[in-house]
């Protein structure tokens, strides 16, 4: 049986996703999403270990680092997300499990708990700002923000100048898509 990586493939999200001139939305497949969280007092040690995988770098608070086949996102104090579209949850876990000392940190599978919506086009911030109070003037590629859109907790990743990835909990994904559909209607 095929294992869907996208909610649209699983029938959990209506397609086509909303679009209008200057804006389009696409769902990115989540092959893996691990939440790595250090216990109190263990943050520095975990940071150092994660840096070992990234030429000595870990994302600063509010940042992210993309490597060849995975992305490391800051997800709160002493907490990161490891995401990948290419490497499976199990394979990514294998690579990192050796790093994670259970006395220092936990790894949690959230690959089915989140949906990743890719927002493209210069109009995306206009639509986001209909319910999101973030100042996107200062949202640079690589930045990560945990905020609210339409009263929902979301994580935003600035992929590049024209692209933003939005992570939302699976159960609210359709509500958020409905919100974007309504939000871009006036621009169609």
């Amino acid at each position, binding site marked *: 049986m095929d294992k869907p990586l996208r909610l649209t493939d699983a029938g959990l999200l209506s397609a086509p996703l909303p679009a209008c001139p200057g804006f389009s939305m696409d769902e990115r497949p989540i092959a893996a999403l691990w939440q790595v*969280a250090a216990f109190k007092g263990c943050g520095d040690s975990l940071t150092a270990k994660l840096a070992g995988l990234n030429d000595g770098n870990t994302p600063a608070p509010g940042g992210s680092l993309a490597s060849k086949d995975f992305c490391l996102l800051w997800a709160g104090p002493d907490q990161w997300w490891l995401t990948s579209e290419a490497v499976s949850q199990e394979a990514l876990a294998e690579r990192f499990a050796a790093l994670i000392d259970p006395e220092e940190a936990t790894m*949690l*599978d*959230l690959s089915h708990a989140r949906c990743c919506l890719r927002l493209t086009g210069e109009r995306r911030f206009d639509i986001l*700002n209909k319910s999101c109070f973030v100042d996107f003037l200062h949202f640079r590629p690589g930045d990560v923000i945990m905020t609210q859109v*339409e009263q929902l907790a979301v994580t935003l990743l600035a992929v590049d100048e024209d692209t933003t990835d939005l992570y939302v909990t699976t159960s609210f994904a359709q*509500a958020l898509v409905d919100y974007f559909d309504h939000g871009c209607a006036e621009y169609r």
Partner: protein
Amino acid sequence: MPGFRLEQGGLIDRSTPLNFRFDGKSMSGFAGDTLASALLANGVQLMGRSFKYHRPRGVYGSGSEEPNALMTLGRGQEEESNLRATMVDLYDGLDARSQNAWPSLNLDLLSANSMISAFLPAGFYYKIFLGSANFWLLPEYFIRRAAGLGYPNALDNEDDFQHHYQHCDVLVAGGGTSGLAAALAAARSGASVVIVDEHARLGGQGLWRNAEERVFVDAALSELEANPKIKVLTRTTAWGHYDDNMVACIQIEGDPGAPLAPHQPRARAWHMRAQRVIYATGAIERPLVFANNDRPGVMLAHAAGSFASKFGVLIGKRILLATNNDDSYAHASILAQAGAEVTLLDARSAVSAALTAQAKAAQVDLRLGQTVLAAKAGKAGPSAAEIGALDGKSSSLIDCDAIASSGGWSPSIHLHSHTGGKAEWRDDLQAFVAGKRLQEGVTVGAAAGLFGAQDALASGWQQGLAAAQDLGHHQASGEAPRLELAEAPTTTIMPLWSCPKPKILKGKAFVDFQNDASASDVAMANQEGYRSVEHLKRYTTLGMGTDQGKTSNINGHALLAEAQGRAIAEVGTTTFRPPYSPVTLGAFGGPHTGMAFAPIRRTPMQALHAAAGASFVEAGLWYRAEWYSRPGEDMWASIKREALNVRQAVGMCDVSTLGKIDVQGPDAQEFIQRLYCNGMKTLPVGKVRYGLMLRDDGMVFDDGTVARLADQHYYMTTTTAKAAAVLAHMEYHLDVVWPDLKVRVASITDQWAGMSIAGPRSREMLQAALPGLDLSNEGLPFMGFLDTELNGLPIRLLRISFSGELAYEVHTPSRFGPQVWQVLEQVGQDFGLMAYGTEALGALRIEKGHVAGGELDGRTTPADMGLGKMVAKKKDFIGRLGLMREGLSRDDRPRLVGLMPADGRSKFVAGSQLTEAKSVGGFGQITKSLGWVSSAHFSVEHGCTIALGFVENGDRRHGETLYAASPLDGLHVPVTLVSPHMIDPQGERQHG
């Protein structure tokens, strides 16, 4: 004669004629007109009736200060009332109606109120109460019907309203000359700028006041358009300034009263967060207070000039303009140059030679030392005015067909005031200006008391530059623009608030037109002891209404000061509060109406439920399948069928909504142990345990299950309703109470889909779906779990039961939920599987006596629910000390009982009170409540309504009969107290 359109002039587009209707009469105007200018151009003087006396009223201003010309626009769904005609841009097909008149605007019988106005002074309704409160009840109906403005639209409003959050370095409120200069200076320096203006185009008076200023405005507008760092919002009013420089703005997008294009918002609420705010909000002209100053054809001097210059409409042919300041000379000149015969009465006995020359050049009949005392006017406009010297000793009549007046200008410091900024009186301006400020906002231009165009421009430029530089923007901004004015305007003024009483004519002299508050009302309020401006406002309503006293406040306060022999600065002014001008309520709600009120949370199997005919019920934000309809069934038939099928065969229910929390860490076991009141330390890996969680006060907080996945890893479930609260409770205790524990918790509700398989055939069915597994009591005992695969998809199989039947829960990563559901549905066909919803689920758990939301209401202890023996004696846990309080262990506390109708058939409902006597209704017949019904449902096992409830000493009263009383439903049903376990008390089914 009434107003008329000039052959040429104005900023209107004469090539685009527009048709509109007013009170059913067809009229025409041009693109660029406002409704007010178009009505004046069509000779309409009478535009409304006053609030209390129903006096005839015409347009008084030309902007948002308008107190009189309030209209209702549109029909049906689009109908909107209380719109200021001066702020409505004319559009083709506009349909306007006058308000507060019966049977018509022209013949308003309610104007009879004017004849008894002596009995209806300010605060007359308070005085009615002095006699007998009952007396008020008689006239109240008529008073309320006779007074007021327009009616709100009672139809559902289906318009779209949008919200928008905007950030910028500098927000400029107001797009006149000073605002444009501020925006340009800030943007050229490198700051991001938003400039808002309430009108359809920027420029303010700079569009028409003089040619040099117009050159600057045009150049500025071109630059604004070309600069991507500047966002321009027209028809947008900054109506409130809140903490941390959050400025609330309302943008009118759809024409009021007109149908909207598909997906076009009616209005947009902007939440502006600016680092610096520049108030370029201009100033508002004050009228002089004289007899009959409220009649149609009487208006502000600036408005008269504005109608001529901006819209090419002259308000009359013989215009009398009364003033006390220099500014009116420009307007008198404009009116004279447009062809009117203008008489300018200046209350001052001497003015500068330049002003005299200006009047002479424009052929204005200038009369110094004189003012207007009264207008001779009906609803068709003035025919004459009584004029005279300020000493009031002599007067004469002068013919005129329009009257304009100016008592000076009041800077618009409303936004400054919203932030707590103070107002300071300036004698030289006879006006309040912005004083000490509390936030990063500065006034420029006329709002700062700088009424000359060059001064306004310079102040805007300077503050725009300063704001940008203060924020670290230092790009070269070039030289400050300068106006090449032939002569700088002067702004001298003499104090004059109320003109002397007339000798020939009679009439009320109004201060607040919208509220019918007159000069005599102010005097009376003072006489009666309302000596503070705030008291004056409340007593006379001066300064209230849609115009919020824009033209009346300062006059009212000055008259109060005069009456008390004090300076205006001593008397002060009332505090301006948001909104600056009316904001449609729809804009506050935005798009969050109806189904969009809150986001909908869906389980992975939502679409499958809908396809199977499910009806949904809101459970928090979740939409849960409540029951599944089949052809020919009503709701109750469906629910009974589903419940019965669980008791007799096997049912499947979506339980994905249960909260699920991942708990990991070296101290996870200790944490879980402290979290629940029952013992958890001995829970082995691979087993599940029911857990009860208490609040600090000892009351039950939530219940659920805990599965131990590994030594340091637990998988918790909570109720649907308390999922978020339980997680917050856990995080609080880890962060604040026990920061030493090495534990991480996280919500995994969305990670896992869940489905309950319940019924005597559930094992058979699952065995068929999972042929390689041993699902016997030995292989998977009650309260055990295992991780396995179903058709290659990972699942977690837990043997737990909520219904009291042999039951399992299948959890799977959420994207696989629909596939797993469908596989089980397929396999289950051979075993009589049916889906069941939350209604059947509720009925089943009540039969079993399992507690849920109705019982976990925050008022019950474990012992109250018959779970007292679960509470650990030897460990510490959250709520232990609270639970030890004497009151929580008393014998007479309400205890959980089962309830059945004594006659075996009567229906009763949750929420009923349990009493010994039949009646609990009626005053004087209140019977003591012994308890309450917490949950009730029809039982398929018993064939009648059964319930759970709490009764004093209930656990020792089985067999007794009480009444379940619900007076609101008219129900008083005798019920028998029984064990809460109304089926299978020994638990043989679930252990089977």
